[in-house]
């Protein structure tokens, strides 16, 4: 079943075509990698898929619904969430608060009930608290629940960002260079985590990554873009052997 599909999406900034007629189909529970040189348009693709940019042309379908011109928060509600290349946590809030904010849509009370702290407020907040603590625990981050995000170690910040993305209970999770800045040991742990959450939450994962070891190690399918166009698509083995990919991206 196709969860997320992009059809011929194109993005132009001024006269510059950053992404040109890009196509993508993500099946349920897939783990797909998007690779390519810096500036090839990967992040722009992400930004279109998550509603940050509106494509100049083309169509994006998430769970049978067109999400062109939908705002990023609508798309999150419809089931696709993301992380960022440069970690974007709410730095002055605790880890738990970071997650709770993304859990926002499942907390059901209105402003008046919140201000006057009705019974509903307490039950809903309690539920949110428990759910979010549970989520942190899944990431072994329970001990950091009350730590300010900015004071977390780098690797934990990356993990927290993923946990936050999962708090909105997405069908598709998009990770933008999750291993950036990690040492090989941390990267290895991250690979396990990604595998684990894919299975545990039964979701589709799309990731941009430069770390070949990570990409080749966990992705079932890889798409290579250059100059905003797909130049190759296939299993890791196929990609490694593809001459075009070697020329444009992998080098000799």
């Amino acid at each position, binding site marked *: 079943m196709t969860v997320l599909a992009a059809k011929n999406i194109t993005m132009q900034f001024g006269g510059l075509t950053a992404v040109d007629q890009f196509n993508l189909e993500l099946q349920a529970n897939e783990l797909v990698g998007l690779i390519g040189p810096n500036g090839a348009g990967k*992040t722009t693709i992400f*930004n279109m898929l998550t509603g*940050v940019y509106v494509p100049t042309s083309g169509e994006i379908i998430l769970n049978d619904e067109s999400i062109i011109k939908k705002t990023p928060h609508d798309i999150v509600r419809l089931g696709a969430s993301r992380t*960022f290349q440069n970690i974007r946590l709410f730095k002055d809030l605790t880890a738990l608060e970071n997650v709770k904010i993304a859990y926002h849509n499942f907390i059901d009370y209105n402003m008046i009930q919140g201000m006057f702290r009705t019974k509903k407020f307490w039950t809903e907040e309690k539920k949110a608290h428990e759910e979010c603590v549970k989520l942190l625990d899944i990431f072994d981050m329970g001990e950091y629940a009350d730590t300010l995000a900015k004071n977390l170690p780098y690797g934990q910040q990356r993990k927290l960002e993923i946990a936050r993305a999962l708090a909105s209970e997405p069908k598709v999770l998009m990770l933008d260079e999750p291993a950036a800045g990690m040492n090989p040991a941390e990267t290895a742990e991250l690979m396990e985590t990604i595998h684990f959450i894919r299975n545990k939450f039964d979701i589709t994962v799309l990731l941009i990554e430069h770390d070949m070891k990570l990409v080749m190690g966990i992705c079932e399918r890889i798409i290579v873009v250059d100059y905003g166009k797909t130049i190759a698509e296939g299993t890791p083995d196929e990609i490694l052997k593809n001459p075009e990919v070697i020329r444009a991206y992998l080098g000799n």
Partner: protein
Amino acid sequence: MDLFLQQLINGLNVGSIYALIAIGYTMVYGIIKLINFAHGEIMMFGAYFAFIFATSFGMPVWAVILVPMIIMALAGVAVEFIAYRPLRDAPRLSALITAIGVSLFLQNLALLIFKADPKVMPKLFPETIINLGGVEISSTTLVTIGLSLFFMVLLDLYIRKTKQGRAVRAVSEDKDAAILMGINVDRTISLTFAMGSALGALGGILYSVAYVQVFPTMGVMPGLKAFIAAVLGGIGIIPGAMLGGFIIGMVETMTKAYLSTTWADAIVYIILILVLLFKPTGILGKNTREKV
């Protein structure tokens, strides 16, 4: 038609003064991203110095204008050094509050030294009425417009054509990269304050000559208007400040002449708001997109 032309000149007159003051706001904003609320007070002190030199020392006119400009340039540098430099890495709003503090401080200092009652600025320029094809222009108006334009062109050439001017632009674009070029960023910021303050002082002098008085709170309203002009033109952009100044001056005069005097200020704000809603970074501002 004559009446309209006459009002056009009136607008140009106010506008050129706003433009001069707006340049100071915009330069400082461009380089340290601070709304220098004290700029209106720099302008006020400039006018006071000119008043003192003109009444008590009997200096020649050029000195009455130039010496206060130099003094206020130094004062601007001092304000930056004492009050703003310690806050360069602090949250921006703190720097803003400091600027408000400096503004209030200078205002109350002036109140203490000079007292509240307005001083009357002597006529610095011989008073005649020049008739240009049916339009009567007083010499003061002519000199105001002329001097403003002269200094604006001078500043523009300095910023565009000289090495120091390039350094100013480099620092406002990217401080770290400017350091890598060997530019002394602190000194360049001081230089910017000096230039902005000198022009502000000139604005104050011309303002007080045109509108006769010098008093401690004289900087507040033109300061606010000039700031609006800077934002309207696109804050941080020098030609934008000039353009904004002329637009505000013109709108104000024309509204008073043909629409309503009491709503003139409101209309200035409405135009500002409309421009910003359609062009959120001002008329000449570039739209920057936050990188995701």
